[in-house]
C-alpha cells in the first residue's frame, strides 16, 4: 500500500485501514502478529509514533491486542468488528445520501420511510 500524504486521510488512519484490509483478505490471521510500529515506520518512511497511533487505534477498537514485550496480535473478533463497522459506515452513508436526495426533491420524512418500506417489502 502506498502512503498518500496528499489524500484527505491522516497517515495513521491509512496505516490502520491497510492493516484492516490485510485482516479481511486473510494476510493477517487470527492470533497472528502484525507488523510492529518500527517495521511500519521503516516501510512507509513515517515516524514510529505515527505508526504506533494507527496500531493503538486498532487496539482500542479490539481489532488488535497487545502481548507484553511481543507486539500486536490480531484478535479473534477482528474480522467481525471490522466487518460490522465498515458495513454500518457504508450503509449509513447511503442512507444519508438518500435523505439529501429526498430533501432536494422535496420529499417528506414519511414519504421517504414509506418508500424504504415498499422497497424492503418488495424484496421479501
Amino acid at each position, binding site marked *: 500500500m502506498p*502512503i498518500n*500524504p*496528499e*489524500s*484527505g*486521510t*491522516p*497517515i*495513521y488512519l491509512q496505516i490502520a485501514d491497510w492493516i484492516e484490509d490485510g485482516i479481511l483478505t486473510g494476510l493477517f490471521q487470527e492470533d497472528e502478529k502484525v507488523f510492529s510500529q*518500527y517495521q511500519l*515506520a*521503516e516501510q*512507509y*518512511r*513515517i*515516524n*514510529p*509514533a*505515527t505508526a504506533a*497511533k494507527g496500531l493503538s487505534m486498532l487496539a482500542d477498537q479490539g481489532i488488535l491486542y497487545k502481548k507484553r514485550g511481543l507486539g500486536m496480535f490480531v484478535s479473534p473478533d477482528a474480522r467481525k468488528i471490522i466487518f460490522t463497522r465498515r458495513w454500518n459506515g457504508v450503509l449509513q452513508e447511503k442512507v*444519508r*445520501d438518500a435523505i*439529501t436526495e429526498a430533501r*432536494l426533491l422535496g420529499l417528506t420524512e414519511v414519504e421517504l420511510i414509506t418508500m424504504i418500506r415498499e422497497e424492503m417489502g418488495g424484496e421479501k
Partner: protein
Amino acid sequence: MEVTFQQVVRQYGKTEALSGLTLNLDGDKIIGILGRNGAGKSTALQIAAGHLKPSGGKVSIFGENPFNSLFASANTLLVHEGMSFPPALRLNAILGEMERAYPSFDKKLARSLLEHFGIPDNAFHIQLSKGMKNTFNMVAGIAARTPLTMFDEPLNGMDAGVRSDLLQVLLKDYIARPRMILLSGHQLEGMEDLFEEVVILHQGRLLHHGNADEFKEGFARISGPASEVRRAASKVQVLELHETLPGMAEAIIMVQPGTTLFMNEGSGLKSTSVSLGDAYVAMTRKKGGIDRVYADATDSR
C-alpha cells in the same frame, strides 16, 4: 528536559533574530523546526549547539548552558551549511577525527554511506560540491549518534535520490538508536512524515509546538465554487482564501481536531488535507497571516 529555551533573545547589531523564544523539548523524538527564512531557526539551533551566545534569556541543553560547555558540546552535534572540518584532512581522516571526538560515532556506517553516495573518501572537504558537502555533513551527523543531533536545512542542493536515501537512513538509524533529532527547514520535501513533533518559529518567537499528526489534522483545504467556499469559510478560521479559476476558489481553513467537516452534498465543495509545509506557510503568511487568524478568531467569538 533536554532542550530548554527561556525568553531567549538574540540580536545581530540592530536586527533581532530571536525575540523572546521559549521552548521545551524532551524525549528521543524526531522534531521538525519549521519557519520561513529569517524566522530564527538557524540562530536557535546555533545557540543550542553553543556556537552563539544569546543576548538575553536562558538556554539549557542537558542541564547545562551550552555556551562553552564541554559536556553539552560532547553530546550535541549541529549539522549546518557552515559546518567545517580541519582543512588538511581528507574525508577518511575526518571520519577518524569524528570517531575520536564522539565516542558513539560509527565510522563503518559513515564509510559505507559515503561509498553508497559515490563520495571518494580521499577527497578534501572543500573540494566537494555544495550537494556533496551537505551529503557528507549529514552522513557525519547521522553516524555521530549524539544524544542531540540537529540538522539545519540538511537537504539543500542534494539530488532527489540522495535526499530520499539519507532520510531513509536517518529513520532507520533513529529506530535502531533512538535519540533527539531536530530537523529544520523551510522546504520540507520528504521530511514531514518523519516528524513526531513540530515546532514553528515565526519572527523570532514560538508560534506553535505540538504533535505533528495533530497539527496536520488541524487544517483542511476546501475548494469549489467561490460562493460555496466563502459560505463554508465564514463559519471557520480561514488562513488563506484565493480564487483559482473564475468563479472557483480554494481556502485553507483550520478545523477542530477530531471533528469532521460538515459539508452539504451537491454544493460541489471538495475537502483535502493540507501538507505540513502548506499549513505552516499559510499560518505565517505575511499579509493577513497570523494576525488575521487572530482577528478572525476573536471576531467570531
